[in-house]
């Protein structure tokens, strides 16, 4: 039996050949090293993301999330729901929150749920948590430090927390303006966090990267530029939208602004997988558009 077991909500971007598939690869490796078992919620659906509001409206959005949670209650009894994607976590948690405080909305959600298969009833029994919460709260920093066999010595990394892992719910005990947990995780894997990274919680533009590219890219430019200013060689993040936006648009930003950005943007789970002795492939490093050579070097060491 694994040391911890969770009902897992991976979300759309984590699917094979989707934009955060590399995140998923590294999460799997990390959890294996930490002896965490993730039981995927069968036939889960999209959370609606934030941008779903315009067409989706209120109840349909909550119903989408309620379906996932209701399946989880039925199949993965007694387990907390864990999401790796910030938007998935936020969407699911928001639904849990709203339905818990609005009996009318809860009844309406269940009325709609009855139309789906599996005889679903949402009761609100399970907590909805982000993977980072599980790591920090259920295992603790000390436990996370134990499996480190290849400290990422000499690496200076900017911990970019972004928005939705941080607001409006955030991680308990952390401030919205300057959360520290990502810096702690960077420290634990043996690298040096950029203490004064002033764009730590700046918005990358989210979904507006598609619809308002100029405005979003101005945001992303700030985020990457500040990392360079403070001497970081890499950005690390807990959010798939942040990762994608900050990484893949660097080429366009370079064209637009004449910058020469080439900053790798990775997930915390990738750092941990490498520090725990995993290979570059296990860490999903082959999924980087901007490669992370130092991390790949360390991963290759002693193999």
């Amino acid at each position, binding site marked *: 039996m694994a040391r911890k077991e969770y009902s897992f909500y991976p979300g*759309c*971007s984590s*699917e*094979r*050949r*989707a*934009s*955060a*598939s*590399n995140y998923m690869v590294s999460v799997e490796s990390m959890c294996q090293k930490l002896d965490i078992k993730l039981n995927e919620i069968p*036939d889960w*659906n*999209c959370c*609606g*993301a*934030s*941008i*779903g*509001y*315009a*067409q*989706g*409206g*209120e*109840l*349909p959005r909550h*119903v*989408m999330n309620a*379906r996932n949670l209701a399946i989880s209650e039925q199949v993965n009894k007694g387990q907390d729901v864990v999401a790796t994607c910030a938007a998935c976590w936020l969407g699911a948690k928001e639904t849990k929150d709203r339905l818990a405080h609005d009996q009318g909305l809860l009844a*309406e959600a269940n*009325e*709609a749920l*009855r*139309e*789906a*298969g*599996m005889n679903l009833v949402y009761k609100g029994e399970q907590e909805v948590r982000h993977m980072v919460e599980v790591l920090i709260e259920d295992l603790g920093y000390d436990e996370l430090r134990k499996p480190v066999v290849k400290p990422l010595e000499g690496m200076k990394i900017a911990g970019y927390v972004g*928005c*939705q892992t941080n*607001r*409006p719910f955030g991680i308990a005990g952390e401030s*919205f303006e300057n959360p520290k947990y990502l810096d702690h995780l960077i420290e634990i894997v043996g690298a040096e966090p950029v203490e004064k990274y002033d764009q730590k919680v700046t*918005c990358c533009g*989210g*979904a*507006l990267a*598609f*619809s*308002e590219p100029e*405005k*979003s890219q101005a*945001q992303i430019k700030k985020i990457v530029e500040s990392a360079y200013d403070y001497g970081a060689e890499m950005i690390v993040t807990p959010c798939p939208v942040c990762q994608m936006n900050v990484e*893949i*648009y660097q*080429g*366009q930003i370079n064209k637009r602004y004449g910058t020469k950005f080439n900053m790798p943007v990775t997930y915390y789970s990738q750092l941990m997988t490498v520090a725990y002795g995993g290979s570059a492939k296990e860490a999903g490093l*082959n*999924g*980087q*558009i901007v490669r992370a050579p130092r991390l790949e070097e360390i991963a290759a060491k002693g193999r």
Partner: protein
Amino acid sequence: MGDLNTSMIEKYRNDFLKEVEANVEEGQWVKMCMQCGVCSGSCPLGPSWEHPPQEIFMMIRAGRRDEVLKSESMWMCTSCYNCIVRCPRELPITHIMHGLANYAHRLGLAPKMNPTRRFAKIFWDNIAKSGRVNELELSMRLYFMDGFKSGVQKGLEMKDIGIGMLKTGRLNPFGLFAHKGCKDIKGIHKMLKKAYEIEDRKKGFVA
């Protein structure tokens, strides 16, 4: 859609605040704004809003219905939730902005060509179709929303990114044909249909 707008104007007469309280997600909070302006100052795209949230709240109370609902402003929301966590009155500002945008969209008043409105619609249709996001289809539809020619042009602009995503295994080249989606997609369709029915009934959007 135009009919719905007319019937709402008739129903609420000049009381736009009441209309917002009844029909907009978290709209009952609008009257609690104390006009400090922290939301406007905290918004990452603040300068791009013609009327930042503080003004929107003021305009709702002043009954400026058309100006609010036809505004591009709410569509600038990136859902970063900065305004929510900083609002001293703890107003769910992000949700109110989403709610207003959604309501304007429902009434057919939202600016037709607003790119975020169009993207949001494509996105929801995309997930409602199969239960999960089909990223390739989503981006293709996004590029081609203004027609074939401009789609090709945008596709070319995005070519490097697309190739990068493909090479790194983060985009499914066969997504248009081979995306699986949810098994119980029929159930999901029925569920969503029901949810719309309930919401429309509740807000008086149907007779």
